[in-house]
């Protein structure tokens, strides 16, 4: 229990390679506690990721279960060429795709399609997402943006603010939500995210950028009041 608490305090921002190696060994040795640790760390984000793509919550639950079973049966073959958590997510993405194909529907995790799908809606949004005080027509600041870093911690990190951030992320387009969740909430490296979601470096960055722009905008309304 103390272990779990420590992980939560760190905000999941640790990706210790050695720690994963130990977990893999324990899992191979059939230690249930190692499986529980993995579930505690990765099940919720995995499920959220799958729910973004699949038509029903039941199907996402189903694929998540299938993923964990595949992790158990495949752990002996896991070669640590990727990190354990990226491997788990890749299994999830593959299973989801396979299932959708079998049901005659297509679901795309490909960066290209996702990127262009996001692109169209984003073109109209760009102006809307610009920071307050920036004049798009004049291309300069008509008033200075607020210094958020000078806000008291109690306000910046209040439950209310953090909840707002979480809600905003949930409303993002699926791929943006996946990228920003893994990068900024779960604390994965960009290399891990690219590998887990099968993204190029450039696409990962574009998705992260768009997601952060939207979260920044939401924070702006929250911290500075709704009026323009």
């Amino acid at each position, binding site marked *: 229990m103390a272990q779990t608490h420590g992980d939560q305090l760190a905000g999941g921002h640790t990706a210790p390679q050695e720690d994963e190696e130990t977990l893999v060994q324990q899992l191979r040795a059939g230690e249930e506690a190692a499986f529980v640790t993995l579930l505690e760390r990765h099940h*919720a984000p995995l499920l959220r990721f799958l729910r973004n793509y699949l038509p029903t919550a039941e199907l996402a639950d189903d694929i998540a279960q299938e993923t964990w079973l595949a992790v158990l049966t495949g752990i002996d073959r896991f070669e640590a060429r990727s990190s354990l958590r990226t491997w788990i997510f890749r299994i999830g993405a593959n299973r989801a795709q396979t299932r959708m194909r079998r049901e005659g529907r297509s679901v795309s995790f490909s960066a290209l399609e996702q990127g262009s799908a996001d692109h169209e809606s984003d073109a109209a949004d760009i102006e809307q997402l610009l920071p307050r005080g920036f004049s*798009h027509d004049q291309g300069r600041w008509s008033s200075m943006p607020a210094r958020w870093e000078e806000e008291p911690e109690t306000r*910046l990190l209040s439950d209310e603010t953090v909840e707002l951030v979480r809600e905003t992320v949930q409303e993002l387009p699926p791929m943006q939500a996946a990228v920003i969740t893994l990068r900024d909430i779960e604390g994965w490296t960009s290399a891990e995210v690219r590998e887990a979601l099968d993204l190029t470096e450039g696409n990962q960055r574009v998705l992260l950028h768009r997601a952060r722009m939207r979260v920044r905008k939401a924070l702006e309304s929250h911290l500075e009041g709704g009026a323009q």
Partner: protein
Amino acid sequence: MTSQATMSDMPSCHEVIQLVTDYLEGAMSPDEQERFRAHLDNCDGCGAYVEQIRTTVRVMGHATPEALSPGARQELLAVYRKWKAESAGRHSGLRGKLRKLFGR
């Protein structure tokens, strides 16, 4: 703002806003990075904006990951135990066959 000559080497405010993630992700060439920094040195608005993005990322880091629900925990542990029992069964089944084959 500084003179046109120095500003012309730098990205515009609009470009800074759009390139902030490339900058924070370390995805710029040393040259681009230098020009980006030079803009920030000369433009308070963009400086404050970049800090807003940094603050956004910091707040995100405090949105602790969702916890595993008790229901999911129960269900997946059941999956684990079933899998373990079955794989143990498979192994002992194999051992049984080998025993028969080799008379021990």
